[in-house]
């Protein structure tokens, strides 16, 4: 990181004002004294004259702030210029950022400047070099990948709609916004250069305003949306229309959920870039997969009895038969029937209800859940072999032929 900054700093100095500013670079005095042509720093300076000057002039600002620790006279000039979000150098002085990094148990090696950048939503700062748009795209893809592989490997028979709902529960927009608030993220009242970089920076919707056009429901990809279409073309949650790209949101006021969500995604992306995928996976396991989700509550059957008989026909089991196991108070106000669904001599499921039909339907639903929620004992997720030369630890996962089609 440091090397990169120095070369960038030098290039900007050459591109803008060569003579007076060269002194403000930390390596400038040394360069002026020994002008040896073999010095790689000088070469990098000559090479980088082609760099296009930034239209906002903030690269130069960055330079001045970076060496502001040694030369305090340059800071007033820096403050005069407008910047829509806090400068990267302000990150080192922010107690909030430091506390946030420790709260999330991130390493000291994870730079505070990057953490500050993940907190800047494109609506606050349209410059893609300073906002979290690119990081959040990377992060949302990583989150989707890790969640999908966890679900598909651990529950190979899960129906697709339940997979989508489970993804939504773990990494959906609502879940990410909740996670951000549980991490203690506070939002700034309005974005600006003078705001503490530990606050979430985004342009707020004014009260009474409607949600902007970009965030509203858009034209679906396809009017006749099939499950295959959802798997292949839609996002991780099987939604019918595409979510807006983070770059489209620059300068547009957004609700706080949108900004909080982009922060969590950008943090994952930044962790992947700085700390590598093993640590991101650990972070994902600790903060996302550790949340409690009972998958059996996500099912909503319409006609479980019919599904079950189709399933038994497909798998070659005997046709399911519902039998009464026990009952009480048939003629009373609160009758209870316990019904089991049997295929031959095997009991597939059991349910209790206040009428024979209710108990039978509950029993069929329990049998279907028992089938769909099958969990293999040993699972190796695809990402566990990433970058490993030895592939002997890999065990192929079970792939099921899918849910019952009626």
């Amino acid at each position: 990181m440091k090397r990169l900054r120095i070369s960038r700093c030098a290039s900007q100095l050459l591109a803008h004002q060569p003579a007076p500013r060269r002194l403000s670079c930390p390596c400038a005095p040394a360069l002026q004294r020994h002008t040896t042509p073999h010095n790689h720093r000088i070469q990098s300076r000559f090479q980088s004259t082609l760099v296009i000057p930034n239209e906002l002039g903030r690269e130069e600002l960055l330079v001045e702030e970076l060496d502001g620790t040694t030369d305090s006279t340059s800071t007033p000039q820096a403050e005069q210029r407008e910047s829509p979000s806090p400068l990267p150098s302000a990150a080192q002085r922010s107690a909030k950022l430091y506390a946030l990094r420790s709260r999330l148990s991130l390493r000291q090696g994870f730079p505070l400047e990057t953490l500050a950048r993940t907190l800047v939503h494109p609506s606050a700062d349209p410059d893609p070099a300073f906002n979290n748009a690119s990081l959040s795209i990377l992060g949302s893809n990583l989150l989707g990948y890790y969640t999908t592989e966890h679900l598909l490997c651990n529950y190979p028979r899960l129906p697709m709609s339940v997979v989508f709902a489970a993804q939504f529960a773990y990494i959906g927009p609502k879940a990410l916004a909740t996670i951000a608030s549980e991490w203690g993220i506070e939002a700034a009242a309005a974005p600006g250069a003078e705001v503490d970089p530990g606050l979430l920076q985004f342009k707020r919707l004014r009260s009474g305003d409607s949600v902007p056009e970009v965030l509203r429901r858009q034209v679906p990809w396809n009017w006749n949306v099939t499950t295959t279409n959802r798997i292949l073309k839609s996002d991780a949650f099987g939604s019918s229309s595409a979510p807006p790209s983070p770059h489209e949101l620059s300068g547009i006021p957004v609700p706080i959920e949108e900004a909080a969500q982009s922060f969590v995604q950008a943090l994952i992306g930044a962790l992947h870039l700085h700390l590598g995928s093993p640590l991101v996976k650990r972070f994902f396991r600790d903060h996302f997969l550790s949340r409690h989700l009972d998958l059996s509550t996500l099912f909503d059957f319409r006609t479980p009895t019919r599904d079950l008989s189709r399933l038994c026909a497909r798998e070659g089991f005997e046709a399911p038969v519902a039998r009464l196991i026990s009952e009480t108070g048939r003629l009373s106000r609160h009758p209870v029937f316990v019904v089991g669904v049997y295929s031959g001599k095997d009991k597939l499921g059991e349910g209790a209800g206040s009428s024979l039909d209710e108990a039978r339907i509950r029993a069929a639903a329990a049998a279907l859940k028992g089938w769909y929620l099958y969990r293999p004992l040993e699972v190796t997720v695809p990402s566990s072999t990433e970058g490993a030369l030895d592939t002997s630890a890999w065990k192929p996962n079970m792939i099921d032929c899918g849910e019952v089609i009626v």
Partner: protein
Amino acid sequence: MPLSAIRTVAKPQNGVGAFILQCKKLSFHYCDWAGSSRGMNAFIKSSLPDFAKRNPQIEISVSPRPNRHPVIIGQYINGREKAICVRRLTNEQVRQKAELLRDASGEKNKRVTKPVTSVNESVRGIWSPFHGAKIQI
């Protein structure tokens, strides 16, 4: 559609995977002149740097509050605040109060009648009158 799914959000379990300390910020207010701040001033001079180093998750701010009693205010992730007045307390007692605020969850104090609660189903299951051996009378 034979089967649809219900959309929910997974519930947090702080401490199961990662643990997030619920205290977000501690602000220490002191007075230079008044005698009730003597212990607080000693704490700020001697023990606070060490306390801050041991608890990096907490943002710490120190600010004067002239002609008032010293106070420690904790801000929590759930949005609540807790304040403790530390007038006439010694250095050690102030440290104890700071640790009390650090360890608090930010919730209002409640009487705990059931010490163990769980989101998981019981392994044993709920007793049912319809199963098991029939009782002969």
